[in-house]
């Protein structure tokens, strides 16, 4: 089979790009541990409180070790439940120091929701019956808005919170 010289060049270019992309994807998956956020861990959406992480007293931000945090959230139409503060008010703002490792654990009681900390790599789909987890290092300071990015109903736009990363 005869191939034009240029054809050979762009075929090699295309295949090399594909190989490179696959290598980087493989590196991210097997070396850096990037995996789907829902690890096929199931939960009863009617009774999320039965799960240790989603007991009302365990919701919200917890420091589990030096510089390591866990944030447990229950999403429902149309609210993110981060637990309550000392005054009994619903928490809508969490603060973590820069460089801390934060594990977000979230589930939903009703429909599919999204959980995106806009401006960071935290972006998960939250499906009823599943627990979504994502661990990240908060590299940059700032105020990041948490938004629901899966349309969940008329109050979709009311689902928000703030993650503040301070120096």
């Amino acid at each position, binding site marked *: 089979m005869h191939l034009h010289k240029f054809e050979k060049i762009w075929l090699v270019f295309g295949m090399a790009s594909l190989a490179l*992309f696959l290598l980087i994807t493989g590196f991210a998956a097997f070396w850096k541990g990037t995996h789907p956020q829902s690890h096929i861990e199931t939960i009863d959406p009617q009774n999320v409180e039965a799960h240790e992480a989603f007991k009302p007293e365990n919701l919200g931000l917890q420091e589990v070790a030096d510089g390591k945090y866990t944030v447990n959230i229950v999403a429902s139409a149309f609210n993110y439940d981060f637990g309550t503060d000392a005054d009994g008010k619903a928490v809508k703002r969490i603060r973590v120091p820069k460089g801390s490792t934060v594990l977000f654990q979230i589930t939903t009681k009703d429909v599919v929701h999204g959980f995106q900390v806009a401006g960071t790599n935290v972006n998960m789909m939250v499906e009823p019956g599943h627990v979504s987890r994502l661990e990240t290092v908060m*590299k940059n300071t700032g105020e990041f808005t948490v938004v629901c990015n899966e349309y969940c109903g008329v109050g979709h736009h009311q689902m928000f919170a703030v993650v503040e990363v301070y120096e």
Partner: protein
Amino acid sequence: MANKNKKQNQTTPKESEISLKGTFISVMLLGVFILALWFGSYALFLSR
């Protein structure tokens, strides 16, 4: 019929004579664009 085919073959330029320069440039521009997008998104992922 056979004659007609012969005539057509004669008027078609040989492969080596076809200029693929324009195609080559377009393919490479598209390739570079895709690479730039890919690495741009990856850099964004790493920086956040």
